């Protein structure tokens, strides 16, 4: 292109030289054309829900040979794999809000899933900026923020079960209209995404496509073809499966997310036909979620029951991941077939990590490693060296400024996050952040995890659990990667603790979250409303489950 331009330029100069010699025309200026602006990259942002590093073979781990993820691994192999991308508040909605705004919950106003209200869609989000700059923008799959997505030319998001969506025959909101689709959610969301990519071909715009899978979120329903995939084998158990929570009785030891809290629905037990639809069936399905309710086949002892539940859970979870991996493969193939690989940035991540029996848990929420660490990889052949690995501390508020910078979009919008484009290019700045700030608020429903804030450096995790307890925990991640031994009261770590507390305080000031515990508790206690406006008087699952008998 540039060559053509130079050629034209030279030729015309020649023309005019000759012209002049003919004495027919007078002087001429050179003909010039401005060089066309540099080509903007396309961006495909793929985010699964509750997908954790332990389930991705690129990260290694105990399932890598039994349940590999070749397509996800391909993104890592052809791009950069990140080991220390951390979530600022490890649950779905708040993580999504932080990603969209580049700001912590205390600025974006979205603190909790349960009674967290709706995301304030009047605020700035990064897709709006892409749209304004002339990008074609699309969103497919899970949104889960209550309000309609803003900044998208086209969207189609899960709009059933409080926007959690269903695995089978899900209801979607397609640009404002509810449509029920036949099929399996992970495949369907990819269908929508690829159809939309086809339609943008004629738009000549660069695109930003956000593809967010419901999978592998609870209730972990696999595609039919993977339902019995691992029936014949016993899945391995993670190292901390039998965590006794010693020294952490009030925190890790006081949750409702252990192997004892799986419901009948989680275990795919068939509901008896005589159970009435509505409240009755919800109660039946969710049996197991409350303390004292144990779901297991008759005749099993406690340990056998616990293992049985884990095996059901992990097989279903990994089967859901397998479908995600298949569909990532479909997206990669599409890019290849349409010659889009070179100029398309692929980001693959999850809203946070998840426990796969680690600490005896399922679910997320804690500042502990398995839920704190997000799977994260970026492929962009033009800027990122294939097969590179990064261990810098990055958090989900850094995504928005990074994506904008990659697209060459400058904005005056204030974001708390920092662009890590230099990290992607392999030039981590010397003064790059060496710690991240964490704050989780939701309590007691779901899963009874005490609100806590904390700091995570590459060596330590310091957390303060504060809601109706006052417990500090400190972990030395080098000596105790499994985080089973809190050393907060170890005098050898007094100095470390003091330094970390200063650092923590500074981060709280920096991120404008330096408030009193009273104020923090208020956020936990505040009912910001439901994520969707239910029909009047209809009870939520939470209300049905926690309702006291009259």
């Amino acid at each position: 292109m540039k060559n053509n331009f130079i050629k034209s330029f030279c030729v015309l100069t020649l023309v005019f030289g000759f012209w002049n010699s003919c004495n027919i025309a007078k002087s001429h200026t050179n003909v010039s054309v401005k060089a066309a602006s540099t080509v903007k990259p396309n961006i495909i942002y793929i985010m699964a829900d509750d997908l954790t590093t332990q389930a991705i073979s690129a990260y290694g781990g105990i399932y890598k040979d039994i349940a590999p993820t070749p397509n996800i691994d391909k993104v890592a192999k052809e791009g950069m794999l990140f080991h220390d991308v951390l979530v600022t508040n490890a649950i779905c909605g708040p993580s999504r809000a932080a990603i969209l705004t580049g700001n912590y919950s205390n600025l974006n106003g979205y603190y909790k899933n349960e009674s967290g209200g709706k995301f304030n869609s009047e605020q700035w989000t990064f897709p709006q900026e892409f749209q304004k700059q002339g990008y074609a923008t699309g969103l497919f799959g899970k949104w889960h923020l209550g309000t309609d997505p803003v900044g998208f030319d086209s969207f189609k998001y899960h709009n059933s079960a409080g926007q959690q969506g269903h695995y089978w025959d899900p209801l979607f909101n397609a640009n404002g209209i509810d449509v029920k689709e036949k099929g399996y959610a992970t495949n369907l969301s990819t269908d929508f995404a690829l159809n939309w990519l086809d339609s943008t071909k004629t738009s000549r715009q660069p695109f930003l496509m956000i593809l967010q899978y419901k999978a592998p979120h609870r209730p972990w329903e696999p595609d039919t073809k993977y339902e019995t995939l691992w029936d014949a084998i016993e899945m391995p158990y993670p190292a901390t499966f039998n965590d006794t929570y010693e020294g952490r009785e009030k925190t890790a030891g006081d949750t409702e997310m252990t192997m004892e809290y799986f419901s009948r629905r989680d275990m795919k037990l068939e509901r008896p036909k005589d159970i009435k639809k509505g409240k009755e069936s919800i109660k039946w399905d969710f049996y197991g979620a409350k303390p004292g309710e144990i779901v297991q086949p008759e005749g099993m002892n406690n340990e056998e029951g616990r293992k049985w539940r884990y095996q059901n859970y992990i097989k279903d979870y990994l089967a859901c991941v397998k479908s995600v991996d298949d569909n990532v493969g479909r997206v990669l193939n599409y890019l290849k077939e349409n010659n889009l690989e070179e100029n398309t940035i692929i980001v693959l991540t999850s809203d946070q990590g998840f426990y796969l029996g680690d600490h005896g848990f399922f679910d997320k929420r804690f500042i502990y490693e398995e839920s704190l660490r997000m799977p994260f990889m970026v492929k962009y052949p033009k800027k990122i060296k294939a097969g590179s690995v990064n261990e810098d501390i990055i958090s989900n508020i850094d995504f928005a400024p990074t994506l904008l910078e990659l697209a060459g979009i400058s904005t005056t919008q204030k974001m708390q996050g920092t662009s890590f484009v230099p990290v992607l290019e392999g030039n981590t700045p010397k003064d790059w952040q060496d710690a991240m700030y964490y704050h989780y608020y939701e309590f007691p429903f779901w899963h009874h995890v005490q609100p806590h804030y904390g700091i995570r450096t590459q060596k330590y995790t310091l957390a303060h659990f504060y809601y109706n307890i006052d417990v500090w925990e400190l972990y030395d991640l080098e000596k105790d990667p499994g985080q089973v031994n809190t050393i907060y009261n170890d005098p050898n770590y007094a100095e470390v603790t003091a330094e970390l507390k200063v650092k923590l305080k500074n981060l709280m000031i920096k991120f404008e979250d330096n408030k009193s515990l009273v104020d923090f508790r208020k956020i936990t206690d505040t009912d910001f409303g439901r994520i969707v406006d239910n029909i009047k008087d209809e009870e939520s699952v939470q209300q049905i489950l926690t309702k006291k008998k009259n």
Partner: protein
Amino acid sequence: MKHSKLVVITCLLILLSCKITKENKTLISAKKNVLFLMMDDLRPELSVYGHSQISSPNIDALAKSGVTFKRAYCNVPVCGASRASILTGIRPTANRFLKFNASIKNETPNILTLVRHFKNQGYTTISNNKITHLKRDINEWDEEWYPSLKGWRDYQSKENIHLEKKGQHGYAYENPDIDDDAYYDGKTANKSILDLKRLKAEGKPFFMAVGFVKPHLPFNAPKKYWDLYKESEITLPKNNSFSNSAPEIANHSWGELRYYKGIPKKGQVSDTVAKKLIHGYYAAVSYVDAQVGKVLKELKNLGLKDNTVIVLVGDHGWSLMEHGLWVKHSNFRVALQVPLIISASNISKDRHTNSIAELVDLYPTLCELATIPVPPHVDGESLVEALQTPSKVFKNTALARWQKGETLIADNLFYTEWQRNNNTIARMLYDHNTDSDENRNLAIEAPFRDIVDSLSTILNNRLKRTK
């Protein structure tokens, strides 16, 4: 020991907390409104363009408040195609935007139109009368208004109405003694005035496109505008027959005009009819000028002018018997050149520029003037430099095409070639420094063969680059 550490920590805390500065909330820069005045078949036959016989006081006044492009060219000389190109920001090619009924929706589905782009930035978008040629060709107008759903010829004289009723064709003009508001353009001006009042009250930025339909055929205008001109004083152009040196493929039979009563099916019109037509064109120009004036006056009265970017543009040129031709539909200068006047608070006032403008440049220009981002898909270049420094030439080439004829305008050279099966079958080259009427086709003269080859190379390289 313990005490001193505490002091250090406290000091650190104070130090670090001092480093935290509260940033101000992001200032939202006030977006500029856009008033887009789309003229139909208006060539630069205006006083401000040196045609002093024309009475166009309102457009001339607009020129005083902005910059007038003396060398603005459409990219395709037919209504629907030219407008589709303007509104999508992409060039017409051999495969798209070819005819009067070009469709944005069908030919470039999903394209980020100028309208959608402004709407995405929070603008109220209004289309009053003819902006796209096809109705409902852009979905993102908040309002797409038309003065009437009846026929577009809008005859008001008894004679023409009678003829049409009988199933015959009306004349190419009429001059009844009626009010401005009797015709669509008067109604469109009134509607736009009401809109401006409402838009001001609402306070949101707006993109208001006003599509006037004169001086498109038929040349219907109230008598008072005809009376501005004496038919006896109207002269026919000197080059009123098709030049021997021009290729026959550049010729056409101006079918659009032949529809009308009193126009022969073949051959040239009589000098009397020719003068009548030119008179009618002038009257229609003066009529539409008055309607433009009403809208601009209201904009000023409402105090909106300073915060509004005003663009007045013709969709393509028109032949008033030059080369023996009428209407548009050719690669001659008269069919390609358009009036283009842009006014905004931060650009030069009362200035002309010789920097070339193509209509495909309007999209990025409007974005820049309105202070919204220029989307990456557009083919044109922003003209803002020329608006700020009109004395300098920032751009000196343009491309235009009509059917198989591809034109490269390179400074004063107007070069056109026609291809069939990858062979060039005809060429035209005019030097506007010496022959702005385009009477001597240099392409057929041996001494210019090298120049023609070079221009052809440049043209075809450019065409290859146009997706």
